């Protein structure tokens, strides 16, 4: 993972800024049963009891609408944490 996250981190500094808190809030709003603060950037979202394949589509739709980025299906498949998705949104393929 290190070899792939390093160049992404570097890019973050030059890319348009996306507020982490509002990203986290938009992500959390896709779920009905999670408590406030339960989802953090480091949360492995697939382990959430409520996560389903439908949520993957909802994540793509939310990011498309809010950030005008259409996430690649494979990038989302590989993502483990909310932060992985956040980075992919900053640096779309």
């Amino acid at each position: 993972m290190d070899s792939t996250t390093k160049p992404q981190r570097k890019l973050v500094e030059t890319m348009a800024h996306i507020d982490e808190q509002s990203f986290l809030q938009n992500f959390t709003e896709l779920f009905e049963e999670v408590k406030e603060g339960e989802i953090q950037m480091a949360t492995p979202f697939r382990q959430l009891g409520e996560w389903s394949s439908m949520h993957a589509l909802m994540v793509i739709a939310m990011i498309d609408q809010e950030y005008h980025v259409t996430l690649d299906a494979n990038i989302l498949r590989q993502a483990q944490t909310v932060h992985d998705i956040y980075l992919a949104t900053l640096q779309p393929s």
Partner: protein
Amino acid sequence: MAKFSLGNVRIAGISACVPRHSVSNWDYDWISERERKLLVRTTGIQNRRVAQAHQCVSDLCVAAAERLLTELAWDKSEIEVLILVSQTPDHLMPATSIMVQDRMGLPKSCMALDINLGCSAYVYGLSVISGLLGNSGLKKGLLLVGDVITKTLSLQDKSTSPIFADAGSATALEFAPDAPPIHFNLQSNGAGAEAIMVKEGGMRNPITYKSLEVIEHAPGICRAGNQMGMDGLQVFNFALREVKPNVEALLAYIQKEKTDFDYFVFHQANLLLNESIRRKLKLPKEKVPYALAEFGNTSAATIPLVMVSRLGEVLQSRPLSLILSGFGVGLSWGSVALSVDKIICPPLIELE
């Protein structure tokens, strides 16, 4: 890009037919109650019409066509072109349209052919039959578009079974030298062929005993090799990327604005995807009709089914400018801009 305009042809009428048998997604107990609620909320699909064993795409389309010809008072002997667009033909061979020619009592002087397309079927079908009627000297034609896609599905595949449903349609077109041109923007990308595919049962992977073995591809996604599989994530991503620029390129090509059109009828994939596309195109809700809640995703038939079930009355009562846009299996997608002037549109038919 395949952008082009076809003249000398008008749509005279449209009809559609669904099986009477209705299935509710609230009864889809292959998934948990929580998943079921989420499924209905995000896809917008409550009920689906499912063809019974004796019902094929020809039955649905012929019922629609017979009713339409009666309402139009067209003589069957005048029909010179019959095109059927479907991915679920009655037989692997011969083409379903040819059997329909005989069954409907159309003359032997009628040319008949099948085209294999799904979600983009209606838009592509219109382009082929309009090109023929506008330039060949042929005067009247029938475009039959439909699918009985549920026959290819596994009930134990949550990514397809609660989404898809069955329907057929018939559109009557005729040579009309004073008709306004119909404009198309048609695209393809075979790199995404596997996103929606029936892998076995064709000539590449002929059916064997192993084809019938049900395999678990992911939790809740179990199907056999001869049943349709769909990579929902990939299809979703494709449609979000491609539909908006396709529609916008069509508008630019004909130098029209979105406000010049009364309705935008999209292929009915699922509510989350369709609403995302609607918002991206900044279209008002009242210009984008849906039939998802009642009929689900009927593959090839979605666009004519929305026109008949949601726009039937306005189609009959006043002139309309429409954008129709289909996208999916292939991958194949395209949009058409057309004007219709008080066309014949009988009420939706239900087939026992």
